[in-house]
């Protein structure tokens, strides 16, 4: 780029001065301002100062008339991206919502405007109406419409929460469900398992408690179920011929397939390594949190859109990744994180499978109904939801005693507090401030574990206090089964060699955040395989984003 271009955010007095300075020195300037008019221009007509005496920034006219300055009002910076020495910014420009060519400045709209809101121009000192003029000189009117509500903004898929909760309040349950399904094809499943970041953000909590956004979703899904209504997910008549392969039938893959089918793609194949759909929703989340029958029904609804789900088809074993690439126009990788991370303590490898089972295998075998030698004590190591799930599942399997060992305290546990309480309530024993040191075995079986007590030191990078071992505090607990549930990682062996994809040091993909595209054209990825172990709704969001990315990639090819 020959010409220097400058982006100035904020059209206040300083912003206007800086814009003028840069433009005079020869740069191309874009001035972005959140309000409909540049700063200090909004002179209320009711003020005590007479218009003639009011201070008007002399730079304003110069900025307006400068041919090297583009002014973007009503605009916000959405995202800034660094790119080879330049910076690209996504700017959202809002509509004024008033056709000012037809406005006669009669102020009738201000008189009848039903929305009185605190005026942000004077820090909420007075009221303004949603429709208002900002600058008496230009006489431009606009209607202020707030951006997404805080719950919708927090939700990874930006579900239209206000509408669907409102529709439930009106008693229109099926309309509400349709609103949810517009963005989320698995309302019943997500409505049961989501840790609902939306409720954590809900404004209602400052009055009493947050709206039960998550369970309301479950409620409308159950209404449909109980009334025996079998919905049909519509696909458009106009079809596209491209073939798309999706690896993994988890929340990301299913959502991606759903949105692609809704766009009109009819050759979508999902390759699922397991004999069951849903990925972690099936093999990670226990039956008591999400009934399999319900999940199966929601998957079937998606499959009935004409999507071919091939079970027991592990990429890399039953079909090679190269073949998939040859046969398809685009591939979405939503393989998830199905490899439990190791504790890295002595004895772990020796007794692998002889009393040591990582939580992924443990939960998967239970979900698939494989027999397990249930006896004695079970120790689960870790403090996340996978640890709590493993412990509660173990309790249901019939272990005599179930322990959870966590190296910090309850306050720092990443698991949802209600899950921790439920586990405690059921009789799971939680031991805090303890970490494994060595797995002890006898005759080829685990018999116990040596642990060390910890204390909390200084806060670390995550803001939680770092556990520090207390010297000489080792002790031994007897146990027949030990389940490490410390974290999960990806298993990208199925890619084979020469795949050309960039894999980062966390063994995940680096993707374009807007489209889900990897560095190889036609290959997209999303879900846990990109983010590491994360919540289901974020995988759904990634699947949706990738579906849009694939659509625009295929249509622009």
């Amino acid at each position, binding site marked *: 780029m020959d010409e220097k271009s400058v982006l100035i955010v904020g059209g206040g007095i300083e912003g206007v001065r800086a814009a003028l300075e840069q433009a005079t020195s020869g740069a191309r300037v874009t001035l972005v301002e959140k309000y409909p008019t540049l700063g200090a221009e909004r002179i209320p007509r*009711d003020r005590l100062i007479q218009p003639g005496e009011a201070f008007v920034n002399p730079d304003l006219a110069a900025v307006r008339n400068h041919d090297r300055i583009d002014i973007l009002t009503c605009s916000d910076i959405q995202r800034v991206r660094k790119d080879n020495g330049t910076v690209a910014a996504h700017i959202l420009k809002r509509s004024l919502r008033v056709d000012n060519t037809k406005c006669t400045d009669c102020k009738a709209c201000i008189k009848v405007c039903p929305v009185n809101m605190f005026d942000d121009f004077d820090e909420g000192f007075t*009221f303004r109406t949603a429709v208002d003029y900002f600058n008496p000189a230009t006489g431009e009117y606009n209607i202020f419409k707030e951006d997404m509500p805080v719950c919708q903004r927090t939700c990874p898929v930006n579900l239209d929460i206000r509408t669907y909760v409102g529709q439930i309040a009106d008693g229109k349950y099926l309309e509400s469900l349709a609103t949810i399904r517009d963005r989320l094809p698995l309302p019943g499943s997500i409505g049961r398992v989501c840790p609902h970041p939306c409720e954590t953000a809900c404004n209602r909590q400052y009055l009493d408690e947050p709206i039960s956004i998550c369970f309301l979703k479950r409620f409308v899904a159950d209404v449909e179920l109980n009334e025996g209504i079998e919905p049909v997910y519509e696909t458009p008549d106009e079809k596209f011929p491209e073939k798309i392969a999706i690896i993994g039938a988890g929340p990301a893959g299913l959502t991606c397939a759903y949105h692609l089918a809704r766009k009109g793609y009819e050759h979508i194949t999902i390759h699922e390594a397991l004999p069951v759909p849903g990925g972690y929703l099936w093999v990670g989340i226990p039956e008591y949190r999400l009934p399999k029958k319900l999940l199966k029904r929601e998957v079937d609804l998606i499959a009935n859109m004409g999507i071919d789900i091939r079970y027991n088809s592990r990429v890399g074993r039953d079909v090679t990744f190269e073949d998939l690439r040859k046969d398809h126009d685009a591939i979405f990788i939503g393989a998830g994180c199905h490899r439990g991370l190791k504790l890295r303590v002595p004895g772990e490898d020796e007794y692998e499978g002889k009393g040591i089972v990582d939580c992924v295998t443990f939960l998967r075998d239970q979900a698939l109904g494989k027999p397990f030698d249930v006896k004695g004590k079970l120790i689960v190591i870790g403090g996340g939801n996978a640890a709590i799930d493993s412990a509660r599942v173990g309790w249901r399997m019939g272990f005599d005693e179930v322990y959870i060992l966590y190296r910090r305290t309850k306050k720092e546990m990443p698991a949802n507090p209600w899950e921790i309480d439920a586990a405690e309530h059921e009789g799971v024993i939680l031991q805090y401030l303890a970490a494994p040191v060595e797995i002890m075995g006898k005759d080829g079986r685990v018999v116990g574990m040596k642990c060390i007590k910890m204390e909390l030191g200084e806060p670390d990078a995550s803001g939680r206090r770092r556990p520090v071992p207390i010297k000489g505090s080792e002790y031994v607990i007897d146990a027949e089964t030990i389940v490490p549930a410390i974290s999960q990682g990806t298993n990208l062996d199925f890619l084979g060699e020469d795949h050309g994809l960039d894999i980062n040091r966390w063994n995940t993909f680096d993707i374009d955040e807007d489209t889900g595209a990897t560095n190889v054209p036609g290959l997209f990825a999303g879900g846990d395989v990109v983010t590491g172990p994360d919540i289901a709704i974020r995988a759904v969001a990634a699947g949706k984003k990738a579906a849009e990315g694939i659509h625009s990639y295929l249509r622009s090819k």
Partner: protein
Amino acid sequence: MCTGRIDPAIVAEAFSKGLDGLLVVGCYFGDCHYITGNHQAKAKLDMTRRLFKHIGMNEDRLAFRQCSSGEGAVFVDIVTEFDANLRRIGPLGADGDRVKGAELHKKLEAARAVLASEKIRWVIGKRTPFLESGNMYGEIFTEHEFNRAIDMIIVEEMEVQEILASLRQGARSIKELANELTIPSERVFRYITALKRKGMVALDRIAGQSPIFQIIPQEV
């Protein structure tokens, strides 16, 4: 005459003249000769009932019922039921209402002004399009949201009309208005600035340190 033509302002005026109850009987939904007359009647009267409840009057004094002209027995039932209800509630401003006597009368005067003013009439008129076809941008609102907006307007418009009624008696300062109407002074201040911006109130003079505001007569 169609129930859709009943103006809520007239209803409020009738009550402020001492009416104890009003029963509106319209056609069944779907039977309307003008297609949506009875829907409009119900929307307007529901809103009026919300306002009556807000000012402390028993909202059951106003009822909307439906029956066809051929259903004599149903009509008798409706009237009997309403009559029994009204006898239980008793005369206006007595035991049946939260706010009593002269105060309720004053509130009803303000309520009449609210119902006669442009704001609430525009909003209630937009109810059907907002709930069914959406605005210019296709944004459809839920009934829940709409009712919440109506409730907000009722609270604010009542206070604004009380302020305007007081200013009609003569120019006043914000403190005087707040004391007279028992509305917190910061709210009065916000209403006054908003009214100034709308061109309905202006500064009269400054007495000591307090600005005194006067009303600007509006052309109708």
